[in-house]
C-alpha cells in the first residue's frame, strides 16, 4: 500500500475527549499521522509523544552568531577601518559595543528562529497545503491516521476511534 495517500480521519468535538482519545489510540498500537486542531491544545504534543522542539538551540546559535558578527563589525569599523575619537575613549572599547551587540543578537536570534521554523515545518510561499478536513479550521479536531503505516487495518482503526469518542470517522484519499 502506498504511503501518504489513504487516511482514516477521526473527527472530535472537544479537546479533552481528543486528548484521551490520542492516548487510547496510541496505546492500542495504532500510529497517528497528525492531529489538526483549530486552536493550540495544551498537552497535545506530549500525549502524541513528540520529541521536544530543538528550535531553542537554533535560536541560541543564531544569537551567538549575532553577537559575534556585531562585535567583529564594530571592532573592524572603529579600530581598523576608520578609527574615530568619540568622547575621548579608546578605539574599539567594549562597553560602547554592548547595545549594538545586544540588538544584533536579538535580531539574528529572531530571524534565524523564524527561518529555521519555516524550513523545518515546510512552510514556503506558494505551497498548497493538504487539507484533510476544512472543519479543522473552524470547530473540529481532526486526527489523521495513515493506513499504510498501520498495515491497512482499517476496521480496527475505525473501531478504536469510535470507542474513544470520535463524533465521526471518515476516509480521505489524496491523488
Amino acid at each position: 500500500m502506498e504511503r501518504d495517500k489513504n487516511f482514516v480521519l477521526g473527527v472530535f468535538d472537544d479537546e479533552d475527549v481528543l486528548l484521551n482519545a490520542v492516548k487510547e489510540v496510541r496505546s492500542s498500537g495504532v500510529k497517528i499521522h497528525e492531529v489538526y486542531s483549530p486552536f493550540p491544545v495544551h498537552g497535545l504534543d506530549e500525549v502524541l509523544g513528540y520529541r521536544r522542539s530543538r528550535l531553542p538551540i537554533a535560536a541560541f546559535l543564531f544569537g551567538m552568531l549575532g553577537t559575534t558578527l556585531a562585535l567583529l563589525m564594530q571592532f573592524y569599523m572603529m579600530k581598523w577601518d576608520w578609527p574615530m575619537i568619540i568622547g575621548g575613549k579608546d578605539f574599539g572599547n567594549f562597553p560602547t559595543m554592548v547595545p549594538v551587540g545586544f540588538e544584533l543578537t536579538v535580531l539574528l536570534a529572531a530571524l534565524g528562529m523564524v527561518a529555521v521554523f519555516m524550513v523545518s515545518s515546510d512552510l514556503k510561499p506558494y505551497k498548497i497545503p493538504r487539507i484533510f478536513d476544512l472543519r479543522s479550521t473552524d470547530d473540529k479536531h481532526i486526527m489523521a491516521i495513515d493506513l499504510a503505516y498501520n498495515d491497512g487495518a482499517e476496521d480496527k482503526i475505525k473501531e478504536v476511534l469510535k470507542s474513544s469518542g470520535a463524533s465521526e470517522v471518515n476516509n480521505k484519499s489524496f491523488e
Partner: protein
Amino acid sequence: MAQATNFNLEEKFDFSSSLKKKIGIVAIIGLVMLVLGIVFASGGGHGEHEAADGAHHAFHWSKRLIANIWINNVYFAGIAIVGVFFFALQYAAQAGWSTPFLRVPLAFGSWLPFAGLAMIAVFLIGNHDIFHWTHAELYDTTSPEYDKIIDGKKTFFFWPGEAGGFPLFYFLRMVVFFGVWVLFFRKLRSLSIAEDLNGGNSYWYKIRSVSAFFIVFFAVSSSVSAWDWVMSIDTHWFSTMFGWYVFASWFVSALAAITLIVVFLREAGYLKMINANHLHDLGKFVFAFSIFWTYIWFSQFLLIYYANIPEEAVYFVERMESDHYAGVFFINIILNFFFPFLVLMTRDSKRHTIFLKIVCSVILFGHWMDFFLMVTPGTLKENGGVGLMEVGSLLVYGAIVTFVILTSLAKNGLVPKNHPMLEESYNHHI
C-alpha cells in the same frame, strides 16, 4: 488532567522546632562571625588610631557595623515589600497560575513592621556614620566645610526645618512609606484570610482594587525610598535610573526568595499542586528579571561612562577603579547576570529544583553584594570590604527575617482555599 479533589486545601505550614533549631544555628554562626569580626576590627588596628590628626578622623569599627546593619535593612526591607508587591501584582494582572503559593510572598510583608522600626532606629543612632549630608557644618556658609552642592539639596532633606537640624522631611517620608506599606499589607492579608472563611468572588475583586492602589503608591514610594536610603549616601552624585535600579535588585531578590521557599515547601510535602510548570514560570521570572536588572545596571553605567562627567563618573571610579571594591564590582555582575543567564537559559534547568536552588541562592547573595556595593564605598571609603563582619551580620539578619516570615506563614492556611482561580492553577500547563 489534575483534579481539584486530590489536594489538601486545609494544610497549614508546620514551623517545626527542628527547623527553628536550624535557623537558630545559622543565627549563632552569624553572631560568632560578627563578634570575631568586631574583635579583629577593634583589636587589630590598621594604624589609624595612631594618626596624628586625632580621634575625629580615626576609623572606628562601629561605623562599619552601622553600615552593615543599614545594608541588611535596605536589602531585607526591599524583599519584604516586594513580596507584598508580587502578591498585588498577581491580582492586578488577574493571574491564576500563582494562586497556590500566594501566601508565601504575602508572608514576606510580616517583616515590614520590624524593618521599619529597625530602619528608623538605625537612622536615629547612626545617621552621621551613614549619611554625609546630616552634618550641620555643610550648610553653614561661614564654615570651611560649607558645601554649596549639598546646600542646594537641603529642602529635600530638612524641609520645613532648619538645614543641618533634624531632617524632618526625610524622616517623615521614611515613616509614611513604612506606615502605608504596613497598612496595605494588613489590608491585603485580612482580605485574603476572610476569603478563606467566607468564600465567594467578591474578595477577589476587593483585593484587586486594593492591589491597584497599592501598586500606584509603591511605584512612587519604591523610587523615592531608593533615593533616600541609598542614593543620598553619595550626596553629590545622582542618577535618574537609581529608583529603578534599586527596585530591580529588590525584585530579583524577592523572586529568588519566593522560588526558594516554594521549592523547599514542596520538598517538605506541602503544596502538592505545584508542579514543574509552576516552577518553570517562577524560574522564568527569576531569569527575566535578572536580565532586567542587568539592563538597568548597564543603562546607568553606559550613560555615565560615555558622558564621562566628573561628578557622575566618580561613582564608578570609587567602585570599579578602587583596589577595595573592583573585585566585588565584577563578581557582582558575574553572580547576578552571567551565572543566572547561562544556567537558567534552558527549559530543563527551570523545571528541576536543584538548578533553581543553586541559582536562587547565588542570586540572593549576589544582590546582597549589589547593595553592599551601593552603600559601602560611600560610607566607609577605603575601610570597607567583605569580611567576617559582613557575612556574620548577613547571616544573623537573614536568620531573623526567615524566622519572622515562616512564623507568619504558619499562622494561616498555606493555600488560599477559596480563591476563584485555584482550579485554573491546577491545570496550569506550559
